[in-house]
């Protein structure tokens, strides 16, 4: 039933044409980023930069998806699916699935258009992990700036942009462990250390994404 409700929400997101906002943004960003192929040996940087730059677009997609459903329909869905917790879970599943598709498109574009050589399997696995973390970070940022948490559209959009900028600034500082350390992902990739540092950076990233999602769940269930 949760999957059926998640599918309903994705269908509403697509049929409302809101999906085109994120599609156009993603295609524009990927066209600019991969307009010319990077030289051999730069595969890690190309893959990781793409994962970081797509996060705000993923957040926008997650926010749009969660905001597509009218509040009254959200109540009816919660009753139909057996409770507010399940309705909330279905929304997050739908948002993450959408972000995962966009992240997959970003990864495919980087592999097909951005790199000159074929990445070695270990790097490819690390890139997959980084894109999955980007999808999770986008879901969390989108959920925290959705209408259920921030009813004002202006405040919501500003929070989304500022949230991503704060993520960049903090992760460039020595306090990078206080956020999803996206700049550290890029530095590690640039230094050729992505595979070695991924366990540490991945754990910090995963922890902050889960904390953000837990806060979202708490706020929704409390309201």
């Amino acid at each position: 039933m949760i999957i059926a409700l998640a599918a309903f929400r994705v269908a509403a997101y697509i049929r409302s044409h809101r999906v085109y906002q994120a599609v156009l943004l993603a295609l524009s960003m990927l066209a600019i980023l991969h307009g010319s192929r990077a030289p051999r040996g730069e595969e890690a940087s190309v893959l990781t930069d793409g994962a970081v730059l797509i996060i705000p677009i993923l957040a926008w997609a997650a926010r749009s998806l969660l905001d597509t459903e009218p509040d009254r329909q959200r109540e009816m869905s919660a009753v139909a699916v057996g409770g507010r917790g399940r309705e909330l879970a279905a929304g997050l599943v739908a948002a993450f699935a959408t972000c995962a598709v966009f992240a997959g498109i970003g990864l495919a574009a980087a592999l097909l258009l951005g790199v000159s050589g074929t990445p070695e399997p270990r790097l490819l696995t690390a890139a997959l992990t980084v894109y999955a973390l980007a999808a999770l970070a986008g879901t969390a940022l989108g959920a925290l700036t959705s209408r259920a948490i921030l009813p004002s559209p202006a405040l919501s959009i500003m929070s989304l942009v500022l949230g991503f900028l704060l993520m960049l600034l903090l992760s460039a500082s020595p306090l990078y462990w206080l956020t999803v350390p996206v700049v550290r992902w890029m530095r590690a990739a640039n230094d050729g250390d992505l595979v070695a540092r991924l366990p540490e950076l991945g754990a910090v990233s995963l922890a902050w994404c889960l904390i953000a999602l837990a806060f979202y769940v708490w706020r929704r269930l409390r309201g």
Partner: protein
Amino acid sequence: MRLGIYRYTTMRLSQVSFRYRRRDRFVIHDVDAHLAAGDVIELTGVNGAGKSTLLRLLAGLAAPTKGTITGRPGVVGFAPDRFPADQPFTVTAYLRHMSRVRGGARWEPWAERLAMEHLLAVPLGELSKGSAHKVGLVQALMAEPGLLIMDEPFAGLDAGTREALPSIAAEVAGRGGIVIVSDHQGGLRPLPRLRHWSVVDGHLKESTTAAPDQEDSPPVATVAVTLPAADLPHFLARMCDEGYRAREIEESR
């Protein structure tokens, strides 16, 4: 089979109070009530008295600030007072999705019963208020709910559906479900053993006088009369003078 599931359903509200935020005043105060299988309850109260909040508490959409609600049936149907029609689906696509959410519940018989066949291909956004309201009723009824909650279900409905709703409520109650309806139009009054709740300033009161004992009363009929709007006050006064219950339902051009 459903009868067996619902036969022993008793929902109980114990000292239930509710407020939206910590420093807000309480919207619902110390409500004690029980709802037994087969109950049909009419809920009334002035605007802002707390009816919709009470319905949300019963549906499980809000948790009591104080007190407990126990025994809520596993399958709940909720028809809001205004169906959210601004969704990018046709009636069929919407009901199919809701059916999947309900584990494959059959919505087609309800669409037929509420005379909606001609609306199935219509986008939700193009429905009239009454037609959209019917979609809300179908999604609430399709899963054979053990608790059916309808908020102002008679508003905007055509005469045929208005007449069908009391028997639908009686059927749900007859198979052991609980039906609670917020209604200012007295649409369920023909039902025997109707319980009447009223919410006054957040306090729930049950009255036994609102619903007449139908078994001892002669059968009644409801008729529709179309007349010039200017004649309405005189007509209503004359009907009341002659001892009939008369009220205005709608004005149209």
